[in-house]
């Protein structure tokens, strides 16, 4: 396998619902990545596209729609869906194509327009699509799953409502310094603790909404392109994981879970992260900046444990001791996280990798971590989807 480098990244800033179409947002991100890499469109030898599930035929063929905007060149275009880890799948396929020598330069992108309001069922066939059951029979929107796990955590460890609120305080402070974030207001602990419950113990400011956004990455092994890029970033590993038997987490979409654990919680993310450690030879102790999927404050805490940054039940202490601040031992989510962005399904994993790359390239202004050398982006998608990307400079 060849070494693969990120040479260009582009983002359309995150925002709320828009009347514009997803491919307009995708084009902004891809254009930004081409400019950043300083290359022409015809250098792209394959396109790995994240599917926009609410976009009908166009959304399911997002790569073809994007290609026609920039000019059709006949290259392989693959469209992929892995729930909120869709972007991880696109990056991994781009990496694998280049690392294997199939192509020299590949594009991965994702773009999503917020579906306006709550996410809900996508079919009416409960036998084929079990997701229908939780909507019709148990009235469980996604945050309910996080709340059920959060309650278990609070009973098992000493996680408090203050800890949950403190996550938002930190995330909102960093989000206020990120021009690409959707939410830019910094909140105090009292403001968070006074926000209404959505599903106890989680409050309104402790969960993330759905957003509009787009992100694109260009990777290459082409020496000429590498040499002219502005601070190339090496991909040390980019992996995906699925769930493991006996994972006690109640998985979004399911209405049951094992009562006796035989695997890690969020085992799909345990799998993806530990595969990445093994492939890269880089361990959690080597990571200088981490982007994790803080869909809720509970995720922020549990992900530090699942990915091995501390032992089970110790994440709260890391948070309270300031270890996860930008100037702490392990800066976590200097971007402001999902808390400040919201979820744009097919784009968010790519945006996390871009934040990591921007940190390594020293492009993050007020939220810049001091001279990081290694960064890790960790994603999470429902029904057993996860991806990990470790990069270095």
């Amino acid at each position: 396998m060849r070494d693969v480098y990120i040479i260009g990244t582009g983002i359309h800033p995150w925002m709320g619902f828009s009347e514009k179409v997803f491919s307009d947002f995708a084009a902004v991100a891809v254009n930004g990545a081409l400019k950043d890499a300083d290359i022409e469109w015809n250098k792209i030898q394959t396109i790995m596209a994240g599917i926009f599930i609410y976009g009908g035929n166009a959304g399911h063929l997002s790569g073809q729609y994007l290609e026609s905007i920039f000019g059709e060149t006949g290259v392989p275009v693959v469209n992929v869906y892995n729930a909120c880890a869709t972007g991880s799948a696109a990056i991994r396929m781009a990496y694998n194509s280049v690392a294997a020598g199939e192509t020299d330069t590949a594009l991965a992108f994702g773009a999503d327009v917020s579906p306006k309001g709550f996410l809900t069922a996508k079919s009416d066939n409960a036998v084929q699509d079990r997701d229908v059951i939780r909507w019709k029979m148990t009235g469980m929107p996604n945050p309910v799953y996080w709340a059920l796990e959060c309650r278990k955590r609070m009973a098992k460890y000493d996680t408090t409502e203050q800890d949950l609120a403190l996550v938002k305080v930190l995330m909102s402070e960093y989000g206020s310094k990120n021009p690409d974030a959707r939410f830019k207001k910094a909140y105090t602990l009292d403001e968070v603790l006074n926000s209404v419950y959505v599903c106890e113990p989680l409050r309104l400011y402790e969960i993330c909404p759905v957003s509009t956004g787009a992100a694109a990455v260009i990777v290459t092994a082409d020496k000429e392109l590498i040499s002219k890029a502005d601070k190339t970033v090496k991909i040390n590993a980019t992996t995906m994981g699925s769930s493991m038997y006996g994972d006690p987490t109640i998985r979004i979409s399911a209405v049951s879970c094992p009562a006796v654990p035989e695997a890690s919680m969020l085992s799909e993310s345990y799998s993806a992260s530990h595969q990445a450690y093994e492939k890269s030879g880089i361990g959690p102790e080597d990571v200088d900046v981490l982007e994790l999927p803080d869909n809720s404050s509970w995720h922020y805490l549990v992900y530090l444990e699942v990915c091995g940054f501390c032992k089970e039940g110790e994440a709260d202490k890391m948070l309270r001791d300031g270890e996860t601040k930008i100037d702490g031992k392990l800066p976590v989510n200097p971007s402001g996280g999902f808390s400040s962005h919201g979820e744009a399904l097919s784009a968010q994993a790519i945006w996390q990798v871009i934040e990591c790359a921007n940190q390594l390239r020293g492009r993050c202004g007020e939220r810049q971590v001091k001279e990081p050398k290694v960064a890790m982006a960790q994603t999470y998608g429902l029904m057993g989807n996860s991806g990990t990307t470790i990069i270095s400079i």
Partner: protein
Amino acid sequence: MGNMTNMVARIPNLVDWSTGEVRLMSAKCNSCGTYFFPKEHYQHRPGCSREGVEDALLPSKGKLASYTIQHYPCPPPFKTEKNITPYGIGLVEFENEKIQVAGIITDTDLKSLKLGMEMETTTLTMFTNEEKQEVVTWAFRAVK
């Protein structure tokens, strides 16, 4: 709980009340020992021969393993005749079957909820259909 003779489940094959007791319709794999709910949510142990899967009703009683109180109405296709928010959602553990199942908490003071408390399976009438039948889901309530 509604009138058992005039009830219909909103989605079939999930909840049974034919014995007079309300019980969840699970399936058990006799090869790997895993219980599934719903029945089609296969969760075999890797390497299992997957032979001998049979229907199994879960016990009517279990313990509350977690809960939340949902403060916003769930979007469609969730449907109830009356607004039930805020409503509790519990995760109830059936110890011998080594499975936890989620469901709406009904007929229980939400302030009294405590982890580990005993819960029983019941039905919750969501709405009445055109045939004047009570359309129900499974639910959990504190054992009195």
